[in-house]
């Protein structure tokens, strides 16, 4: 099978490309905004480090588990996209291509997107041996809470002035956590009584 047809090989190439792009953006940003670029470059370093750790500990899914292997590469690619995107925003801000505050906004927009993606897939995640209505209800509740919170946070960081977005975004995340806790307690009580 050609490397371009093998989905895992394609993902490996894409991941390598993302890491190289991240390093390029990171080196562009490092001289002008080291305080923003350094943590992101360290974050980028965790991707190959995480992969190597899994490989060393024997936890990397083998060729006999292609679905899990694909899932792992997709997760690494997702993380790579967020970090490379953030480094690109910092580099662009450092070079004066975009306003300074957009570099900060990008990080928050990316985290809102991650929340949406994780929330969307959460109810689909099979919990081995758990087919109970309580598990299902909690997974659905968390999924919807993550997605709606992510969408609200994304809109806030896209539209409001930076100072207002910081306060409002924090309030939205706080409210979402409180709501999720209260709803989970309610589901558990209902399941225990019925």
């Amino acid at each position, binding site marked *: 099978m050609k490397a371009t047809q093998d989905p895992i090989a394609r993902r490996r190439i894409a991941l390598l490309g993302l890491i190289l792009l991240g390093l390029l953006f990171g080196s562009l940003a490092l001289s002008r905004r080291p305080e923003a670029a350094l943590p992101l470059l360290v974050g980028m370093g965790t991707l190959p480090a995480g992969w190597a750790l899994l490989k060393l500990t024997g936890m990397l899914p083998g060729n006999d588990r292609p679905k899990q292997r694909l899932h792992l590469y997709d997760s690494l690619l997702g993380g790579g996209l967020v970090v490379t995107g953030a480094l690109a925003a910092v580099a662009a801000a450092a070079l004066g291509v975009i306003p300074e505050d957009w570099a900060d906004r990008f990080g928050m927009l990316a985290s809102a997107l991650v929340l949406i993606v994780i929330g969307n897939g959460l109810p689909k995640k099979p919990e081995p041996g758990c087919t109970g*209505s309580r598990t299902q209800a909690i997974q659905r509740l968390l999924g919807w809470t993550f997605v709606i919170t992510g969408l609200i946070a994304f809109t806030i960081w896209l539209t409001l002035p930076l100072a207002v977005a910081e306060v409002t975004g924090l309030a939205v995340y706080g409210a979402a956590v409180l709501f999720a806790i209260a709803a989970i307690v309610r589901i558990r009580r209902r399941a225990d009584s019925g």
Partner: protein
Amino acid sequence: MSSVFKALSDPTRRKVLQLLRRKPMTAGALADHFDVSKPTMSVHFKVLREADLIHSEKRGKSIIYSLRMSVLEEALMGFAQAFNLEVRRDQPDPDQEKES
């Protein structure tokens, strides 16, 4: 994704998903809610399983179905329900053809 749209375009399958939203159910308990034959229900379950919208687990003699819908898929089902989307009956439904 087309398998998801196909699965959600049928009112019976949407009703199955709505029932499973409350709690996981056995194939028999689900079938009790519909006035259709067992083979027809089996075809509906198969379509939903192939679209990865439900998960089946064998326990003893019965099969327990549980929901496996992402938030986006649930939202799509909501839209399909709101606009009452249905497979066009002027074209033969492949499922019905298989059954007959």
